[in-house]
């Protein structure tokens, strides 16, 4: 009896330790070596500073000026090409600068400090029945980081993130803090949005919000040749459709042919949004993580992974989901910790009508090469002319490729070659590549993709002659 009691107490104690350990967020290791989620270029930086007050951020810039140090600006560091750090630079980690400063329910605007994450904003506005207009599919990123890459998401009506930014304040290299909008300092507005942290520190941002909406998800299976027409007729011309996401197979049995598409259409009854507006939490991600892990290593597992994914999404057909919940898609299962390899991204934009031919050519390249391609999602971006480094000057499909690659020099070289070939194919079809990823594209490819890049780098020197704000992306591509 006594033994049983001892056992019971010990088991209960242990169980409570386990629960405590699982719930306490794990510590982040910080040292002076810095990299981003791409993990491709770890370097030594001078210092990482995480400030929460504007005055301290200003001091960092002033001190950098006095000591002639370079400054790189970092959010969640999900850009993969060294956009958030530089060797021996001061890295300004903005994630502590994350408060909501103002909220106007009537005008549907919110003013936030730039280190806030989309998740924080969602937590704040969901109870007021409001939603974010445009952001990435996942909500883990900071607002400042997202603006610096001019992100886009599943929304098909609004354009890229820039269209939802009313104004922001920018701490420039000379220590000034101008307000920047379409009316004030217009030039800076279009340079700093999608400016990769090269024009200053984005401080506080006013974002335009919208009403939260209830959507009905419909998922269908398609052949890739049907997709362009399907998208124009069933999605773009269907005013009820607000968001859209497609996947094209990377599994050997259906490589770049089979697709399934998910549309989010306004649900017919207005009433039940309240029944679906509780923000979803990340569910147990063990199974998807395991399936993805197997797919990294085995081709047969890629087939299985594709089938499971497809069945899962087809089964969700007809489900109702709030806009806020569409915009907080699972991301934890994508986290991958390994010493020698890593998952990296590429994103290509291709005009809607060129999709079929483009996929045929892309398939030719990829069949001839060895690239461990794990997943491709397809979304849509509107025509967007504003930003100097605009990636979408017509209606485009955006393909995000998830690639597992080795970290060794040899492996990186191999991936680099394939990436350049894929970009050539993309350019041939009037497409573009997205800048936040590895610095594999050549300068020439950058120029062809972004015809205004020369102007961008000239303006950079004009606004920041000492090149105070610097990162590896800038070093690689400045003219």
């Amino acid at each position, binding site marked *: 009896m006594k033994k049983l009691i001892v*056992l019971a107490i010990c088991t209960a104690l*242990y169980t409570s330790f386990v629960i405590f350990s699982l719930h306490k967020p*794990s*510590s982040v*290791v910080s040292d002076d070596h810095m990299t981003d989620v791409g993990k491709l270029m770890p370097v030594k930086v001078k210092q990482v500073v995480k400030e929460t007050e504007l005055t301290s951020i200003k001091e960092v810039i002033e001190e950098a000026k006095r000591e002639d140090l370079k400054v790189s600006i970092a959010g969640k560091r999900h850009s993969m090409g060294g956009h958030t750090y530089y060797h021996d630079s001061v890295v300004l980690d903005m994630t502590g600068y994350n408060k909501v400063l103002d909220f106007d329910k009537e005008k549907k605007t919110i003013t936030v400090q730039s280190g806030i994450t989309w998740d924080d904003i969602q937590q704040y506005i969901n109870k007021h029945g409001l939603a974010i207009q445009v952001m990435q599919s996942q909500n883990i990123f900071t607002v400042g980081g997202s603006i610096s890459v001019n992100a886009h998401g599943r929304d098909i009506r609004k354009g890229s993130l820039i269209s939802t930014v009313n104004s922001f304040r920018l701490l420039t290299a000379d220590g000034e803090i101008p307000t920047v909008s379409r009316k004030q300092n217009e030039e800076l507005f279009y340079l700093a949005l999608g400016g990769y942290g090269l024009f200053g520190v984005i401080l506080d941002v006013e974002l335009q919000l919208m009403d939260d909406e209830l959507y009905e998800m419909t998922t269908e299976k398609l052949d890739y040749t049907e997709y362009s027409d399907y998208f124009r007729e069933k999605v773009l011309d269907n005013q009820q459709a607000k968001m859209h996401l497609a996947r094209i197979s990377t599994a050997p049995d259906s490589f770049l042919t089979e697709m399934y598409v998910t549309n989010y259409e306004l649900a017919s009854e207005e009433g039940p949004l309240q029944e679906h507006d509780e923000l979803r939490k990340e569910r147990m991600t063990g199974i998807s993580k395991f399936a993805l892990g*197997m797919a990294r290593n085995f081709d047969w597992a890629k087939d299985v992974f594709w089938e499971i994914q497809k069945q899962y999404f087809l089964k969700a057909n007809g489900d109702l989901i709030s806009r806020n919940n569409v915009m907080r898609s699972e991301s934890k299962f994508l986290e991958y910790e390994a010493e020698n390899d890593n998952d990296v991204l590429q994103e290509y934009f291709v005009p809607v009508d060129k999709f079929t031919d483009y996929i045929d050519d892309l398939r030719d390249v990829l069949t001839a090469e060895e690239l461990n391609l794990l997943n491709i999602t397809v979304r849509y971006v509107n025509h967007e002319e504003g930003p100097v480094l605009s990636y979408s000057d017509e209606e485009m499909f955006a393909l995000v490729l998830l690639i597992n690659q080795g970290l060794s020099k040899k492996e990186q070289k191999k991936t680099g070659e394939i990436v350049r070939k894929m970009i050539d194919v993309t350019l041939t079809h009037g497409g573009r590549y997205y800048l936040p990823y590895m610095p594999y594209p050549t300068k020439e490819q950058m120029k062809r993709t972004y015809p205004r890049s020369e102007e961008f780098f000239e303006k950079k020197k004009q606004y920041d002659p000492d090149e105070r704000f610097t990162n590896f992306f800038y070093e690689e591509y400045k003219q």
Partner: protein
Amino acid sequence: MNDTRLKGLIISQSSVFFASSLIFPYYILFIKNVGSSFAQFGLSYGLFGLSSALLHPVIGRFSPLIDHRLFLVVNAWGMASVLLLFPHVGSISQVYAIQLLLGMFGAFQKHGEKIMIAEFTDGAERGMKIGNYHFWTSIFSAVAIMAGGYLADYFTIHFIFYMSSALYFGSGLVVMRINSNKSILVKKDKGYEMSTEK
């Protein structure tokens, strides 16, 4: 009687070896992430050995007074608890502290294991049985090292820490089920065999 107890010892220690091998190679990577120099790395391993060494004579002295199963239970449940701290370690000084604890629990395990093998075996059969004991515990170590790699790849390194912790805890439960020769701790409990007191 001794055979059943030896079996219990083999099962419990096989899971201890399984659990420790599951994390060991990855624990090194983990320390490497926290520490940044060879000196820190060496120091942390030195502390492990040192705390273990200093504890051995103390354990030895108290050994005749204590139920020997307790050594293995302290190791198993101590390790189970310490492993839960791993995901939260963020500085090199915390690594040093954990290394000290690991060294101490390691001493309990070594002492308990040896003393119980000695208790449960004798005469001509002793050699064979010790061979058998090491066979099983080593097999489990080997399998665990291989499995650990896949688990860390497919899940996370934290996942194997938790899994290892659960195994340690289970091992403690198995140890509790081994009938003891000595029963200082549970002397008053009539349910236990007192007769085997040496």
